[in-house]
C-alpha cells in the first residue's frame, strides 16, 4: 500500500467521461459524483466510506483507500469523496494536497523511490537521484512522458541500516550504487517493456 505498486498500475481509463453518471452507492442512497465510473473500485470506495459511517474524521483513511484503488486522486474522485463524507470539496482538496503521500497526478507504470533520509544522503543518495535523472531522462518528482516510470524522493523509509536505499515498485533494495540502480532500471525502460501488463 505504500508506493503505487504494479497492482495499482496505470490509472488510465479510470475516470470515464461517458460514465453513467449517478450510480447509487451501497444502500445509503448517496449519489456518486458525475463522471466517476460505477465500477468495482467505486463500489469498494463507497463501502469504505460506509464502514467509517461517513464520518468526516475518516477523510484521510478514505483518501488512502481511494489512492490504493485508483493509483492517484483525480479531482472528480475528490468531489465524490467530499459528497460521501458531506464535506466541502475545499476541505478534501486541502487535506489531499497537504500530505505528501497523496498524489493528484497519475504515476508511471513503474515507480522508483530514492530514499533521501539523512543516512542515505550522507552515503550518496543525491548522486543516485542525479544518475537516475540522467539515465531515465526524468526529473525527480515527475513521470516520464511515455508513462513508463515515475521518479520519487522519499523523506526516509527507515531502512537506514542498508543505506542508500531505493524502492523499486514497492521492493526495498539496499546499498545501492549508481551502477546497480541503473541496472535495475534497464528492464523497465528498454523496449518500453512492461512486465506488469
Amino acid at each position: 500500500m505504500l508506493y503505487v505498486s504494479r497492482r495499482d498500475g496505470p490509472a488510465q481509463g479510470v475516470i470515464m467521461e461517458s460514465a453513467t453518471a449517478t450510480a447509487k452507492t451501497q444502500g445509503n442512497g448517496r449519489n456518486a459524483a458525475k463522471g466517476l465510473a460505477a465500477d468495482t473500485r467505486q463500489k469498494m470506495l463507497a463501502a469504505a466510506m460506509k464502514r467509517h459511517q461517513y464520518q468526516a474524521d475518516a477523510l484521510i483513511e478514505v483518501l488512502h483507500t481511494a489512492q490504493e484503488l485508483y493509483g492517484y486522486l483525480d479531482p472528480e474522485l475528490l468531489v465524490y469523496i467530499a459528497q460521501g463524507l458531506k464535506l466541502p470539496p475545499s476541505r478534501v482538496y486541502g487535506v489531499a494536497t497537504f500530505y505528501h503521500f497523496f498524489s493528484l497526478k497519475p504515476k508511471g507504470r513503474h515507480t522508483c523511490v530514492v530514499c533521501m533520509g539523512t543516512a542515505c544522503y550522507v552515503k550518496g543518495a543525491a548522486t543516485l537521484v542525479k544518475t537516475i535523472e540522467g539515465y531515465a531522462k526524468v526529473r525527480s518528482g515527475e513521470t516520464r512522458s511515455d508513462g513508463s516510470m515515475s521518479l520519487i524522493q522519499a523523506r526516509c523509509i527507515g531502512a537506514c541500516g542498508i543505506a542508500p536505499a531505493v524502492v523499486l515498485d514497492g521492493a526495498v533494495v539496499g546499498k545501492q550504487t549508481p551502477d546497480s540502480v541503473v541496472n535495475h532500471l534497464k528492464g523497465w525502460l528498454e523496449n518500453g517493456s512492461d512486465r506488469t501488463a
Partner: protein
Amino acid sequence: MDLTELLEIGEKERQSERSIRIRVCVAAGCLSANAQAVKQSLESAVAEAGLADSVQVAGVGCIGLCSGGPLVAVDPENILYEKVTPADAPSIVSALQGGAPATARQADFNHPFFTKQVPIVLENSGKIDPERIEDYIAANGYQPLYHALREMKPGDVVDTITKSGLRGRGGAGYPTGLKWGLVAKVKSERKFIVCNADEGDPGAFMDRSVLESDPHRVLEGMAIAAYAVGATQGFIYVRGEYPLAISRLQTAIRQARKLGLLGSQIFESPFDFRIDLRIGAGAFVCGEETALMGSIEGKRGTPRPRPPYPAEHGLWGFPTLINNVETFANVPAIIRNGADWFAKIGTEKSKGTKVFALAGKIQNTGLIEVPMGTTLRTIIEEMGGGVPDGGAVKAVQTGGPSGGCIPAQALDTPVDYESLASLGSIMGSGGMIVMDQQNNMVDVAHFFMEFCTDESCGKCVPCRAGTAQIHHLLSKIREGRAIAQDLDTLDRLCAMVKQTSLCGLGQSAPNPVLSTLRYFRPEYEAFLSTPETASETASDGRGPASPAR
C-alpha cells in the same frame, strides 16, 4: 481470560519449543536483503535433514546488526551468522549435527555491539515471532497488564511510572509520570490514549523496529497507560511509509482482541480498552502532538498553540495522553520489575535506557539499546566499530532535522537529555548518524533546511518564510555568492525562527545550522572567499547539491 489461562498459553508455547531454534530476522532491513528466501531454504533444509522434530525455524524481529543482514541466529549455541544467502542454509543445518562449519560468515555475539547493550525495550526483539501473541505471552507478556489491572489502583500505576523517572522518548524528555498524572486528574466522560508512531526524523528507525519486532509490548504499554489515566480508546498513529509495521500491528491488535486482552472487561475487570490504527500520510509536522491530533481527526496536520495542552484539551476536545512508541514500550517492564529497578539504570536526571539507530559512515549499522549516560565514543567507536576503511569521525548528528551536529572532539559526552542539549543538539527520538571527512557540514545544514522548508506546514510566518530564507541563504553560501555579513544574517535569522515559531518544528529547525556554525564555522567561511576558492572547495569533499523537490 484470567491469569491461569494466560500462564497456560505461555506454558503450552514453551513446551512446544524444540531443542534447537534457528531465528531468522524478518524485520524490514533483513527482509530487503532476501531474508524471506533464507528462511524458506532453512525450513526445507531442516525438513530434508529429517530434523523437523528437534529444530524449529522461526521468523523473528530485529536482531540489531542491520549492516550484517540477513541475520540468522542459532539457539541454544548462541551462534550468529551474517549476510546469509539461501545457498548457505544446508550447511547451517548440517553444522547443527556436528558437520563441517557453515559456509555463512559468523558474526561475534561477544562484540561490544551486543555486550554493551542493556535491552529493556528491545528485550524480545529478535527473539520472539512478532506475529504470534503466544510467543509474547511465553516471554511473560501481558502479565504486567494483569498485575496493573487486578492488583494496583490507577493512582499506584501513575506513581510507579513517576518514581521510575521515565521521560518521554520522543525527544523532548518530558517526565512521563507527570504527564500521566495530569490526564488522570482531569475529570471527563471520555479520554484518549495516543501512541505517536509517526517517526519522521530521517535517519531514525527505532520505533519502526520496535513495532515490527515486538508490537504487543506497545499495545500492553498503552493498555496500562489507559487504565492509569482512565481512558477507553487508544489510537496508534503510524507512518504510511512503514507497511510492515502497520501489518504487524494489525495482526497484533486482532490477536489481542481475540484473546480478550483488548476490548471489554479485560482480565475480568471493569476495564475496557480498544486500540485503532491511524495511518499517516507523509507529513513530518504530524510528529508534533497537536498536529498529530488534527491528522487523527482527518484534518490537515497543522499545530495549534499550547496551552491548552492535550492533557486537558486533546482529541475532539477530550483529555488525551500522547506518548511515543518507545515510552510505551518501557511501561510493561517498569510495572513488572518496579520503579526502583528502572531508576537504578541510567543517570541522575535521565533514567533507563535509550534505543539508538546507528547509521551513516559507521561500520556496524543497526539498532542498539544502551543505558543513559553511555558516552558517544563508546557507542560509535566501540559498539559501532568507527568509520569504515579507517576513516575518522567528523561529526555525529542526533535528533534529525531538530537536532544538531556534534563534533568529534565532544565524543566523550555522555548521552542524556541535558548533555546533548548543552551541545546544541537534542536527544531526539534516537537517530544517530555518523559523518566523516567526506561530508561537508554546510551541505548537511543545507540538506536539513531544505527538509524543514518543505515540511513546514505554513501556518506561522517565522517558520514558513524563515526556513525558506535560511535555505536561500545557505544555497547562496554554497554557491560561493555570499559575503561575511551573510553569516551574521544567518545567525540572526536562525535566532528569530527559533524564538518565534509556533511549534517544535520551527523552533528547532535552525539547530542543524546553528550547531554547524558553532563547530564548523571555517567550512562556512571557506565558501565566502573569492569565487575561485569556492570552486576549488567544490571538488574537495563537497557532496553534490541536493536536487530541489
